[in-house]
């Protein structure tokens, strides 16, 4: 029997942490105990770059985090979750399945020996993006002049700047205090974190804008995967697939409960129309394409995956 080490950032008792425990349980079940997943939560083994290096070296076999971190091996992978490019979730899933994106993953795998386990959109993160603000947001117009907190990321800053917001960079842990002092008015967040970060206490308007979709990548060491016997590999894939189903169910349920609780405590929840955002960003991305800042064939692939196959 084999043991795989799996590193994660999240605490065991967080919604994502529970998904990882379930994965470990399912792997045990579907490989008849031939493969054990030992989870190391809370960044115990280090932050992203350190863990990815350990993954490369085969010290860790799975790292569950956003695929964006693989951009160090294939820079185009920074483009798996761009803001306001896709019409809806299904559009994004179709895009992730294109040869273009698969090609990026292959480039990364050749360079690093690290690749996604199974379908890269199986396990959702979020499950969707919202903005928490201390002023009401009902449409794109309300973004104009909004003081918005951002992480130090050039593209994200440029994006929201283009949408009209006044962007300020602040550490994630300072957000609560900063909104309460009106240093900023709003923050973007996965809906699942709003309540645990207590943003609802200082920013009582929660607006679903579906900024982008994101999955939790199960990045794995390819060599370790190839070394598994066929039946164990099948069991592992099966377990991963079932974990995907489990993640959708539990995240949906947990999100609904959290929203209900916050609404009972007085927050206003709105769903804003994403279409005007996507339209407004179109010329931004056109400009980037012309400046050669987008991966080759990017907008083409986005357009091609727009119509359902």
């Amino acid at each position: 029997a084999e043991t795989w080490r799996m590193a994660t950032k999240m605490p065991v008792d967080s919604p994502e942490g529970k998904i990882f425990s379930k994965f470990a349980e399912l792997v045990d079940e579907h490989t008849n105990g031939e493969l054990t997943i030992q989870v190391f939560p809370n960044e115990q083994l280090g932050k992203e770059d350190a863990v990815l290096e350990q993954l490369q070296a085969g010290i860790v076999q799975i790292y569950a985090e956003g695929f964006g971190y693989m951009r160090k091996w294939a820079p185009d992978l920074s483009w798996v979750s761009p803001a306001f490019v896709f019409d809806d979730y299904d559009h994004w899933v179709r895009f992730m399945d294109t040869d273009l994106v698969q090609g990026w993953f292959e480039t990364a795998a050749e360079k690093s020996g690290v690749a996604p386990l199974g379908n890269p959109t199986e396990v959702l993160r979020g499950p969707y993006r919202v903005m928490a603000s201390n002023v009401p947001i009902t449409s794109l117009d309300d973004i104009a002049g909004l003081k918005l907190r951002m992480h130090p990321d050039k593209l994200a800053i440029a994006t929201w700047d283009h949408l009209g917001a006044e962007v300020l960079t602040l550490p994630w842990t300072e957000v609560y205090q900063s909104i309460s002092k009106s240093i900023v008015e709003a923050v973007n967040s996965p809906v699942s974190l709003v309540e645990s970060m207590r943003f609802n206490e200082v920013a009582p308007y929660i607006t679903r804008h579906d900024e982008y979709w994101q999955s939790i990548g199960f990045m794995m060491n390819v060599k370790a995967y190839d070394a598994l016997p066929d039946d164990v590999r099948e069991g592992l894939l099966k377990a991963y697939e079932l974990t995907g189903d489990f993640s959708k169910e539990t995240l949906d349920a947990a999100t609904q409960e959290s929203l209900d609780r916050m609404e009972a405590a007085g927050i206003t929840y709105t769903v804003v129309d994403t279409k005007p955002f996507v339209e407004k960003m179109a010329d931004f991305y056109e400009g980037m394409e012309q400046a050669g800042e987008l991966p080759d064939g990017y907008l083409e692939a986005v357009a091609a995956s727009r119509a359902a196959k």
Partner: protein
Amino acid sequence: MTPHEYQSNGALQRAIHRADKIGWSLGGAFIFLCNLCMLMMFLLTAITFLIRPFDLSAYWIWPWTMVLFVWLSFFGFFAMYVRLKDVRMDLVAEKLGPMGMQATRLLTNLVALAICGVLLKVFPTVMATSSGFVDGAILPNGHELPRQFLSIPLFISAALISVSALLDIAKMLVGLPENVSMHHPEA
């Protein structure tokens, strides 16, 4: 006792003494580097909260503060080693007499060589795998700082500590005294 406080006789001793003085001065240069990193961190952080009331922020400030902090720590590794800023406990060695002092002096050099030797041995591996860039730490040309530059000062310090340890062993062999300080930092 510092290299500027002891005497040397004969060509061999004098040559080693000169090398010791160079190492000591190099330690001073590294202290200067550390101070520079610290002053830059100080200024960047001060700017951050001074411009915040005007709704201003520059996203590269924080990442660069972190880079400077890493460099301060890693350049400081050599500086504090060669300038004897670290804490050591003399009590037991003193009880053991002159032999105790000599033996522990040799032990310290060997320990330093072992640690820094291992660090230098894995240097190529670390350089090969630490690909990517430091998010937000932009350079004047618009690119971000490659991640390798975070660890390079650690390896420079490790190399210089190894040389210092070898030099001190050479000093022992030709009968020159150990550099010591009365400094007790850290708590």
